[in-house]
């Protein structure tokens, strides 16, 4: 409430008023179904995920390796030319520790979505995914990670064919 207004005009309603039938209302659940066309580049990207691989596109002009792959380079406005397989490993570019789901349900164990800069991709290239097998305390920017794929039979050609990215075990040189 502001300093000058103690009571705002209007008809405040509480959830209880609906439950007890004190107020009439229309309840509507629209069917919001959609189909998003993956296109040539993302279509191939998803098919390669199903095969357990990550793939990118190269621009013939600026030589950048683009992931997620796209058929046109947004810098040069020219068609990209080659498919490039990536090793799948990468580094955490940024991350978040989430204690709520996207529809605001509380989570006991937080999930850790992260942007992962993939090895072999040009700077700025990478994908967003979840981190796993790592505690919230241990996550840091620059953490080296690798993808954990679902078993081949369970993959459907979706980004969730990768279950999550996990830290690469440190190997002493």
């Amino acid at each position, binding site marked *: 409430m502001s300093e000058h207004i103690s009571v705002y005009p209007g*008809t405040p*309603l509480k959830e209880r008023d*609906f439950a007890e039938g004190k*107020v*009439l*209302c*229309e*309840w*509507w*659940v*629209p*069917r*919001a*179904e*959609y*189909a*998003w*066309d*993956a296109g*040539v580049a*993302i*279509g*191939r990207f*998803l*098919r390669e995920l199903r095969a357990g691989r990550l793939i990118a596109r190269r621009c013939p002009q600026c030589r950048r390796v683009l992931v997620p792959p796209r*058929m*046109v380079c947004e810098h040069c406005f*020219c*068609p990209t030319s080659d498919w490039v397989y990536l090793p799948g490993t990468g580094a955490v570019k940024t991350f978040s520790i989430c204690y709520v789901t996207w*529809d605001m349900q509380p989570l006991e164990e937080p999930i850790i979505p992260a942007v992962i800069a993939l090895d072999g991709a040009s700077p700025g290239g990478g994908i967003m995914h979840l981190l796993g097998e790592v505690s919230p305390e241990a996550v840091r920017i620059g953490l080296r990670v690798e993808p954990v794929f679902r078993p081949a039979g369970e993959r459907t*050609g*979706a980004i969730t064919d990768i279950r999550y990215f996990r830290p690469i075990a440190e190997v002493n040189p």
Partner: protein
Amino acid sequence: MSLTERLQSLEHAIAWKGEIPLQSRYTLGLAGERFFREIRDHARLLATHCPACDWTYLPPRAYCERCLAELTEWVEIPPSGVVYSYTVLYRDLDEQPLDPPLVVAFVRLEGCDGGLIHYLLVEPEQAYIGMPVEVMFREERKGSIQDIAGFRPA
């Protein structure tokens, strides 16, 4: 230069399907609440009247759209009117065929300056502009526009 790579097979055409969970609850407002309660409890139509503009609103408004005055004068409107315009629907919202087709009309009600859009309960060939009709209330009502089954010939 043109794009050289195209989809080579139908199975390579991937569409990502999903559904956005949406729910909506529409409250009727002060005037709408009274309008639909009256329909539910007494099967009567109420309108609001602006004495300054001599205008009668149906569906009722809490404020006059012409002079912005608060409207406190409620009047009962007889459940009869005249078809102002109509359309015949052969498909539902999901584009599924409707058999028999539905007739939806805008009916201007007597004794007011407004009207209602609702089903016209006649065969499509029988509908015409200027047709005298009356409101058909349902036996079971719960405070919704569905408490009215539609308009039938008077």
